[in-house]
């Protein structure tokens, strides 16, 4: 017999990872909103930022589904650092006055600036969550149902966004380099 519904450190951390994954996937979903509602196609660097977001989310989803492991955190951190560097590059491209910007501002910041802040927050959050050493202990019982449900929701969200981005990026860029200043939404 196994224990049921153990709200131990491991389960709480799994829940946080599922919520974190849903947050980063929501940001990518929001970028789709900007793409199709405000008709702003993503620039090449914006696509790389999405890749960073999905890679970060993948690491968090793996933690939520299979339990926290250093390899999952490593993957999430690499994705977040990659996205952070790309978004910083995107900010730097437009930081000199008179060089313009890409797209419209959302709540006062451009999307790549928001992405930089999100990646920064993810890196700090992952570092803080990793302080809790007992999350790496073997499971003592099955986690509460809400943890597994949220983990599966996050996974489904990730599968959908990865598939959708593969399709829309292939359609937008076709064979060859993605356009620097795209005009085609899809």
């Amino acid at each position: 017999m196994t224990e049921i519904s153990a709200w131990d450190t491991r389960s709480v951390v799994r829940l946080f990872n599922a919520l974190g994954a849903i947050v980063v996937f929501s940001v990518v979903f929001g970028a789709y909103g900007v793409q199709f509602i405000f008709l702003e196609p993503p620039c090449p660097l914006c696509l790389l930022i999405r890749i960073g977001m999905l890679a970060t989310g993948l690491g968090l989803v793996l933690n939520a589904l299979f339990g926290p492991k250093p390899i999952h955190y490593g993957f999430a951190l690499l994705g977040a650092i990659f996205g952070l560097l790309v978004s910083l590059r995107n900010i730097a491209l437009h930081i000199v006055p008179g060089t313009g910007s890409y797209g419209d501002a959302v709540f006062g910041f451009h999307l790549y600036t928001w992405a930089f802040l999100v990646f920064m927050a993810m890196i700090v959050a992952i570092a803080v969550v990793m302080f809790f050493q007992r999350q790496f202990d073997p499971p003592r019982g099955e986690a509460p149902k809400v943890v597994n449900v949220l983990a599966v929701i996050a996974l489904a969200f990730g599968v959908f966004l990865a598939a959708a981005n593969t399709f829309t990026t292939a359609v937008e860029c076709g064979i060859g380099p993605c356009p620097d200043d795209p005009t085609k939404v899809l």
Partner: protein
Amino acid sequence: MDLPTPLIASASPFYWIPFLFLFAAFLFALWGTLREDSGELGEVEEREK
């Protein structure tokens, strides 16, 4: 002055490929989740045996 094309943007034009890799990774995670013995309960029961 024109800004130089970002090295990272010119080096990897096929951005759908990393998305495809991520999609495959997500599917792999889905497959792992659907496997009968992959759940935490299975792990616990296996250890108890």
